[in-house]
């Protein structure tokens, strides 16, 4: 996976709760069998005024000038600020792929949907949970100073707003943190436990043989 240790960048405010994965990347783009190329269609139905299709020339499509990522001050944003339950809905990993492909490395929100949260780590996209009040404060800060940059330090578990001299701390579980910091290959790591997996299978085959139909046939 892509490694992540620290990052500094422009934060874009997407002032919306329950941003679902259908909104992040609509289904017509899930037909791609690749992991890349989703960036131009990130938030497709919010970003463009027409209906998007796969393989289109997106530069020729009418853009929604009111959408935050279409505003010049946020065109280079790499941190997204959103409200609660970000990433709810489908399990599509295309959602973090699209955010990353656009250039987003962190999403800050008061809460995330479970599968999206999990999928993000697998790809080096850091989801950061801050309190409601802290997120509200950041929304005010970024709206009053568009183009505001934040500095994220994963090892220290901090988000620093240098303009306002504020440091926000976030929590994250150890396993995910280490995987991200080291850019670990999780499958390789699990395969180191091959002996334990085989031992489990031997035990289960004895106790629940119906789960191994080749044996019961």
């Amino acid at each position: 996976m892509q490694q992540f240790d620290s990052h500094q960048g422009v934060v874009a405010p997407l002032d919306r709760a329950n941003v679902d994965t259908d909104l992040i990347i609509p289904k017509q783009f899930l037909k791609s069998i690749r992991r890349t190329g989703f960036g131009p269609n990130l938030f497709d139905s919010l970003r463009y005024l027409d209906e998007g299709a796969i393989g289109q020339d997106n530069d020729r499509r009418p853009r929604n000038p009111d959408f935050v990522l279409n505003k010049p001050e946020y065109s280079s944003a790499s941190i997204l600020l959103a409200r609660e339950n970000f990433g709810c809905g489908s399990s599509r990993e295309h959602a973090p792929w699209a955010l990353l492909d656009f250039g987003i490395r962190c999403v800050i929100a008061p809460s995330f949907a479970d599968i999206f949260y999990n999928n993000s780590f697998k790809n080096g996209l850091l989801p950061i949970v801050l309190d409601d009040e802290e997120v509200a404060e950041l929304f005010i800060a970024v709206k009053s100073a568009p183009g505001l940059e934040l500095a994220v330090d994963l090892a220290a578990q901090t988000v620093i707003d240098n303009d306002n001299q504020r440091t926000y701390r976030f929590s994250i579980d150890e396993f995910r943190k280490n995987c991200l910091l080291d850019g670990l290959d999780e499958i390789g790591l699990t395969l180191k436990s091959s002996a334990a997996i085989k031992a489990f299978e031997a035990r289960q085959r004895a106790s629940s043989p119906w789960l191994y139909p080749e044996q019961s046939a």
Partner: protein
Amino acid sequence: MAKTLYDKLWDSHLVEQRADGSALIYIDRHLIHEVTSPQAFEGLRLAGRAPWRVDANLSMPDHNVSTDRAERAQGMAGIVDPTSRVQVETLASNVQAYDIPGFSMDDPRQGIVHVVGPEQGATLPGMTVVCGDSHTSTHGALGALAHGIGTSEVEHVLATQCLVQQKMQNMLVWVEGSLPVGVSAKDLVLAIIGRIGTAGATGYAIEFAGPAVRELSIEGRMTVCNMAIEAGARAGLVAVDQKTIDYVRGRPMAPTGQMWDKAEVAWRELVSDPGAEFDRRVDLDASALKPQVTWGNSPELVLPVDENVPDPAQESDPAKRESMQRALEYMGLEPGQAISDIQIDRVFIGSCTNSRLEDLRAAASIVAGHHVADSVKQALVVPGSGTVKQQAEAEGLDSIFSAAGFEWREPGCSMCLAMNADKLGPGEHCASTSNRNFEGRQGFGGRTHLVSPSMAAAAAIHGHFVNLQNHSEA
């Protein structure tokens, strides 16, 4: 110590508990479809890895397949959209390359993974079941620990037969009473989501229990568990009882003979122990429920059919007010408008939530002897699997639907997320038995109202929503 059902399932699949709080969990069944697997197979190939245990997997295409009979008869060539076709072809070549079992598009058993798994006995009580699809929670209705995963995890399961997990918390949703006539499992789960919200169960596994859940058929329990994810829970569960055992017996992939006897004994233990502690409990009374209709772009924006669309002006929280306003604008609804006045352009009866035999029977019983309203442009019935389709046809349900002006289709996901040709046009209102009413979910600009199969059938006939409780003969 008294354990919950979730605790038992977790403990019995624990391969390794790690010091950092993560755990390695063994996966008994991995279901695979064409949308979330191509990149996982590619990853496997690039790393030079092989599947750990081929026979634990079961694959089938469902999202992109055509539901049109003539197109379906042409096989791959019948998938008109080339990008959809490539995805279905990619699945076919991947499962062939790795010798993974499954049902191809023209297999009579093909269908939506979450309908086919239980139906074939590929999902059994006590299993851990995963799929690159959030509605994998459906399988929890059989007392299995089942949840959706992303593509990286699909690759992880293929390569290791395990997942790295953090244990969830336990939530109990206890439903007293009995569902009134005209009120179904779908209405129950919509009401639960309306009550706790779409993030209400984030971080939890929900066990649905109580007299009203016991009374549900296994199919009804699947409808409820299917939408556990819509309440934020990764997994939904119902304890094993006699109905579970009866449902599983005789399924093609279920154990037989002595193996069955042994399995049955073990499965009967799959209940929460008396006195087991839950981290959160929610109580509901089924007898007070009415048929539900969603009016906004989140499943939590739901109301009983006899109520009115809410007025954002009455909402004191500014963030909520704004999201209500946005929902009403997208949905083209007026504050205070009666739900029963919402005019319907299309009707979709299908999806992994409501496309099983019981659902089709319920819809057919409303439809019989009536006709789809002139104002309704299209009414689709899409059985969840080839097996459901055959059973329904054997009962003559297809003729009831066809005579009433419904289109009787081939199995697949269809208009649930409109990856194939079945979709809403901009601004069209749909009475849909699916699970998500997100913006654009059923087609660009489409307006989805989630309802039960009977409610969708009645809406098709009347051209607007009606309270089934006042329309006994529809």
